[in-house]
């Protein structure tokens, strides 16, 4: 009944003013709410990240510094300066509230601190350089996999599909069960090591100069093919399985029977009725599993020594470069929360019912 009353309120006077009011009142309100939640997620996650080192009672940074100091050598000069900065910023003698305040202040300015291993390079420098590689390759592949997988699943879940589709696609779906980085290893072995068609690792050949020339771009693309396929194969299967299930569920809906009774063309029923409705939970799913996709891709980068976030993370772990690790974690959380926020606010465009639910 509330739904009805709201609804008819809208239809009663469709004037410009009322449209504006509805936009601000419901849609605007909805975006604001989602944005506040985005801020909340980032804040809470950062707080957790702040607390974790203080729970263990140990100070990895101090230990690392001591270790380096004992070794002496080339880093000695920078070390003193860094130790001072460290003391000033994170001095454990300061009260916890001040430390927390400083941490949040830096975060608000998007200042992730300095690297211990590569002092005085900043974490921002290191992370954002590798982020370009990660976003370039993994971002494209994730979206591509989502589209391809959803389409494949839609066809597989359509009762009027040609029979052979089943036999071609179903075996491909089992690839979804194989972790991406293992698929990566198989691909390297077959196509890079055995056949030698494609480069074994890296984002570009050591010999080339990373400037924007035609040769360089071809080289980068060649290096991207294997990691891309490793992710594509397994993620496509994941989306296809989900979509297939949703398509089968959709078949039982009353509006599908009615679409047939209306004598619509098969193509229209497929696209406008079945696929569009089955797509909605897929998009929700995308928001939910974003986290696992990102970490999975981080590992694929590691296998290929691809110069993205994953590789940097590995290096940082090896060198106990605490601030770089922390920076990467924060950037990834930012990315996932941001992408979820985007999906959340785009979702009402796909599903008109959501506006009512949110208000």
């Amino acid at each position, binding site marked *: 009944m509330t739904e009805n*009353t*709201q609804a*008819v309120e809208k239809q009663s006077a469709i004037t410009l003013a009322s449209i504006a009011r509805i936009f601000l009142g419901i849609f605007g*309100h909805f975006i604001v709410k989602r944005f506040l939640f985005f801020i909340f997620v980032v804040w809470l996650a950062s707080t957790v990240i702040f607390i974790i080192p203080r729970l263990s009672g140990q100070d990895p940074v101090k230990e690392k510094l001591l270790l380096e100091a004992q070794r002496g050598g080339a880093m000695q000069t920078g070390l003193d300066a860094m130790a001072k900065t460290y003391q000033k910023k994170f001095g454990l003698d300061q009260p916890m509230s001040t430390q927390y305040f400083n941490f949040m202040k830096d975060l608000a300015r998007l200042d992730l601190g300095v690297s211990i291993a590569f002092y005085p390079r900043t974490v921002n420098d290191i992370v954002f350089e590798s982020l370009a590689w990660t976003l370039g390759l993994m971002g494209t592949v994730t979206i591509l996999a989502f589209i391809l997988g959803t389409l494949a699943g839609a066809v597989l879940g359509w009762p009027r599909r040609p029979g052979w589709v089943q036999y071609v696609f179903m075996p491909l779906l089992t690839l979804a069960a194989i972790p991406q980085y293992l698929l990566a290893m198989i691909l390297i072995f077959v196509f890079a090591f055995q056949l030698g068609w494609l480069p074994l690792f890296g984002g570009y050949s050591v010999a080339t100069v990373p400037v924007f020339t035609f040769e360089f771009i071809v080289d980068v693309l060649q290096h991207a093919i294997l990691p891309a396929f490793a992710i594509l194969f397994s993620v496509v299967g994941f989306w296809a399985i989900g979509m297939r299930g949703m398509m089968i569920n959709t078949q039982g809906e009353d509006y599908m029977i009615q679409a047939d009774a209306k004598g619509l063309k098969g193509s229209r029923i497929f696209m406008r009725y079945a696929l569009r409705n089955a797509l909605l939970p897929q998009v929700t799913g995308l928001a939910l599993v974003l986290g696992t996709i990102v970490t999975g891709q981080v590992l694929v980068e590691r296998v290929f020594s691809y110069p993205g976030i994953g590789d940097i993370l590995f290096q940082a772990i090896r060198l106990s470069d605490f601030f770089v690790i922390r920076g990467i974690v924060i950037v990834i959380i930012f990315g996932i929360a941001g992408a979820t926020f985007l999906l959340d606010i785009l979702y009402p465009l796909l599903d008109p019912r959501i506006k009512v639910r949110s*208000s």
Partner: protein
Amino acid sequence: MSTFLELDHVTKKFGSEGMFGNGMVTIAVDDVSLTIDEDEPSITTVAGESGSGKTTLSRLLLGSHVPTEGRMLYRGKDFTQLTRRERRNFRREIQPIFQDPFESYNPFYKVDHVLSEPIKNFKLASSGREKNRMIEDALEMVGLVPGETLGRFPHQLSGGQRQRIMVARALLLKPRVILADEPVSMVDASLRATILDSIRRLNRDLGISVVYVTHDLTTAYQISDNILIMYRGTIVEAGTVDQVIPNPQHPYTQLLIESIPQPDPKNRWGSEPPQQNWDTSDTDIAGCRFADRCPAVMDQCRTSAPKQYLINEKQLTRCFLHEEKGEMQNPDITSTFQTESETIKAIPADMSA
């Protein structure tokens, strides 16, 4: 005369106004006063369309909703002040029968579960044998054969059987009031009679009051003593069924009765009535909520809300057409209900099925 449950100027609102609400407020139940007496067991129908507030009213009576305004009294005591023990007693003494006899069953269990659980929870039986006897008695009371019913899963029984087990369940708890919310609307016509008969029998043989919530005025007329008609949260008409159904006074009741599809091809509907208008929020309506559909609408209907006017001692209505009768002194609508069973209740001939 002891009062079991009393609603004193009870209002229930949903939704909220202001910046974060969407501005639409639904007054599901608006200023209702009524009493349910123990020693005068009767069958009372709450009738209305969807959105009339009849389900909200029944949830209030069950204690599942808390009034937004007004007081609810259980045996004379304010509902908010009940002790744990009293609340537990209340829970046992008023029992529901829901609309969908299938969904009332947990698919994990055999139908026995729904009968034995309340006995266990309220410690009604001292031994397993006593428990079994109680269950069998209750089943027989509603015309079921225990051997054919117990030990089965709900999907193995018919809709009619399932609903009658629900009546038996309510019976086990020895309640004072049974609240039957559309108990036959999802059951085929040929099976309705037996369920309604078993409900009627509870009232007559065991002295249990029944609140029968329905949109079906025909069955209401057949089994109940009293009726109240709701429209958008207000009670527009109330009284004994013998008074209200043949002589409806409120234009809405008249429309409702006239719209019932009677199984008589010689007696067909008149012209098409106007559509309902949901455009306005309940709080924006200053006058009578039925004004925009009312064929007899007057100017004052749009500006001020009608009060309860007494047509005679067995019927009240909330319509300005009867303003000259004067506002009721006692807001309790049940004051128009018959105090003694006057109608002849037919003895159910068929309880086998």
